[in-house]
């Protein structure tokens, strides 16, 4: 009897002592844990767990105050004044001060740092000049009037700037910057306990974090697993509670056998085929571009070709971007059969009567998924319009170069995952002066609408952006195919996992039952 009590007691007690551990998949190994060198999503994810900026995210991915307790934005939207919370501390107990932000931003924008994501800070006064070395980093528009007040000046109003402040590139830095970034003092909900490359990043709760009492987990084990199939095996073997993704082609199986654990949700990403408007046959031929777009059956692409819950895309901007209404192209409300009739009509009008078929090249970066999509699209074009399509695949580094130069490309794989959840993240790509505009689309009225939207606010701004997208979809420099989704497996023992379009799920909001001792 006594013995049994003792065992029971030990079990209960050891659980209470050890606390809960969550095991999460991370995808590839992070490229750097230095806030100014990190580029890839895995690195950004770890940095969001161990550090915090002026703003942060709640469990549903909304922007909330982080190190800043409150802020005021002036009427023109160009001056931000932040009041820092008085209980924001570094993991060594030091207070997080406004100077820590000034120091970090000067480092981010100094040419010596070569910060890879510094362009997110481009709206800040003198930021672009500092990056290329024409101004001293000390002259950028960030100032600390007192140790708990921070002032940021922007060149133009930037409605998504509060989200930029939640990105690692704008985080504060402690005065001591060690050579090995994983050993740095941090200010987030967790801190690095153990790091084995390609095997484990173990985070432990940071007791100095200002909301530490609301953090349930004591340990978070992030496992870098590059291969989604291996990740799924380890999930099924009980070694992970949350996966980073699911393997392509396993969606249906998982939906049948583990439907309660499968989390597929809309994501701020868009997949399209770009058309090079600098070259034949697309230059000055909007009818041909629209014909090719209408001839594609997006439902088949989304459901059968990519097939993991992706949504067919009738616009460039995905849904769920605040109050913005995506502007579908003309003909999207028709039946596919009528769309194909319309496609044939436009194709003829574009100068391709029957008997003289169009020969084009579709270029994509090597991946079995992209190949499947390219095959499906080219066979739809052949069936509906009789177009002959050559598929050309290139390895990623070669592909991005040929796409940027635009001397070889005709039709090419394109797409975008937003840096911030705002329609401009997508629409800006099609400004005539944007170097990411690989279609070389240039329309004055589109550019003008985008410029107008920059200085407007609220519904007026949204109206201009919607008109810009309408114009874009009329000119059809790209053929939207589908919207990305985020895909995770989440064990039923995990609570607090809230689906959101940014796909940000900070561990500070998660809880796990039955802690693994």
């Amino acid at each position, binding site marked *: 009897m006594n013995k049994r009590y003792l065992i029971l007691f030990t079990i209960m007690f050891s659980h209470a002592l050890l606390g809960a551990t969550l095991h999460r998949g991370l995808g590839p*190994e992070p490229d*750097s844990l230095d806030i100014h060198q990190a580029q890839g999503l895995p690195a950004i994810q770890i940095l969001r767990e161990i550090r915090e900026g002026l703003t942060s995210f709640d469990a549903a991915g909304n922007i909330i105050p982080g190190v800043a307790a409150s802020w005021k934005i002036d009427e023109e939207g160009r001056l931000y004044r932040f009041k820092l919370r008085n209980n924001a501390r570094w993991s060594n107990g030091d207070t997080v001060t406004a100077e820590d932000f000034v120091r970090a931003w000067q480092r981010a924008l100094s040419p010596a740092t070569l910060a890879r994501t510094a362009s997110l800070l481009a709206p800040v006064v003198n930021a672009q000049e500092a990056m290329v070395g024409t101004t001293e980093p000390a002259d950028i528009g960030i100032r600390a009037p007192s140790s708990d007040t921070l002032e940021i000046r922007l060149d133009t109003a930037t409605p998504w700037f509060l989200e930029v402040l939640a990105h690692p590139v704008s985080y504060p830095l402690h005065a001591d910057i060690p050579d090995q970034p*994983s050993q740095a003092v941090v200010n987030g909900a967790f801190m690095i306990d153990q790091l084995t490359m*390609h095997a484990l990043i173990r985070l432990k709760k940071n007791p100095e974090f200002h909301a530490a009492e609301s953090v349930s987990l004591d340990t978070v084990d992030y496992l870098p697993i590059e291969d989604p*199939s291996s990740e799924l*095996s380890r999930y099924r073997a009980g*070694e992970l509670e949350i996966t980073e993704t699911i393997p392509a082609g396993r969606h249906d199986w998982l939906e049948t056998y583990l439907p309660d654990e499968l989390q597929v949700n809309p994501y701020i990403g868009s997949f399209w085929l770009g058309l090079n408007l600098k070259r034949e046959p697309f230059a000055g031929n909007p009818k041909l571009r629209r014909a090719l777009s209408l001839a594609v059956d997006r439902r088949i692409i989304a459901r059968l070709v990519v097939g993991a819950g992706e949504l067919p895309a009738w616009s460039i901007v995905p849904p769920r971007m605040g109050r913005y209404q995506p502007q579908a192209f003309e003909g999207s409300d028709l039946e596919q059969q009528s769309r194909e009739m319309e496609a044939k009509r436009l194709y003829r009008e574009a100068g391709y009567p029957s008997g003289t078929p169009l020969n084009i090249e579709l270029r994509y970066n090597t991946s079995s998924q992209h190949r499947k999509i390219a095959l499906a699209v080219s066979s739809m074009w052949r069936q509906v319009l009789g177009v002959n399509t050559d598929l050309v695949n290139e390895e990623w580094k070669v592909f991005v170069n040929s796409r940027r130069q635009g001397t070889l490309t005709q039709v090419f794989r394109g797409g975008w995952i937003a840096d911030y959840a705002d329609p401009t993240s997508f629409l800006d790509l099609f400004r005539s002066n944007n170097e990411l505009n690989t279609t070389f689309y240039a329309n004055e009225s589109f550019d003008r609408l985008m410029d107008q939207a920059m200085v407007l606010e609220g519904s007026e701004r949204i109206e201009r952006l919607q008109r810009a997208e309408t114009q874009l979809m009329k000119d059809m420099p790209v053929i939207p195919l589908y919207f990305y989704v985020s895909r995770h497996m989440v064990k039923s023992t995990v609570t607090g996992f809230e689906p959101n379009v940014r796909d940000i799920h900070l561990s500070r909001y998660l809880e796990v039952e039955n802690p693994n001792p």
Partner: protein
Amino acid sequence: MLRHALGRLLGVLPTLLMLITVAFFLMRVAPGGPFDSEKALPPEIEANLNAKYHLDESLAQQYFRYLGQIAVLDFGPSFQYKDWTVNELIAQGFPVSLTVGLLAMTLAFGVGTLLGITAALRQNTGVDYSLMGLAMLGISIPNFVIAPLLILLLAVYAGWLPAGGWDGGFASMVLPVVTLSLPVTAYVARLTRGSMIEVLNSNFIRTARAKGLPEIVVIRRHALKPALLPVISFMGPATAGMISGSVVIERIFSIPGLGSYFVQGALNRDYTLVMGVVVFYGVLIIILNFIVDLIYAWLNPKIRYDEKR
């Protein structure tokens, strides 16, 4: 023996230099560079980056700079994993690959020779046929089929072993070691059987048997050594291949070894990482082949006597 060793050792340097040269220029011939990505960097920043990594110098300058670095065993910083130097990456990855590789090698040679000898002694019987049949299967079924099967059976369904990962413990080594050793075991078994049969049919074995020696002594003292010669010469490159890390095994079992750096480094144009791993691997193969040569000379009197003459 010593002269033989020294002669071989001197031959190593030109081989190594050739390897470095070919790898260096092949890497640079590949289109695209380490900083190419979807978003082009502002030209000023790209110029700064190129200057930092000396990519703004002429190719010849870079080549000789690299040779100078290698001479002091400095492989430089990694482009892709910016927090680490290539030396640090190799220092972290190699012990893991070495552990897995050596264990797999020991398993493969132990089990492989045993099976091969057994099959040779029972030549053309059911035992021989079934062992060689199994070995054929082991050679022809690729790792990437066996590994997921084993994971599914032993980790997902039975739950006896972890499905992947690396904590340095015994349990996490079992599946990768077994998977890695299977094809080598099979190959060694077939190799051993073949040469054993050949040796058993040779004149000196007939003499030994005629002298009335018990079969076990004939095999242990007279047949084993010559029969293992082809296996030994296979062992050099095989060991190098196994301890330098297998991309497939490392990916499937998420093991933090060296193997993945080859592919990842090449795809990302991580010049320093690829070069570092190539040079490291090259030195490893050369050293192992050298050791095999020495063992071979020790086992095979013909080579020793040729040298003395």
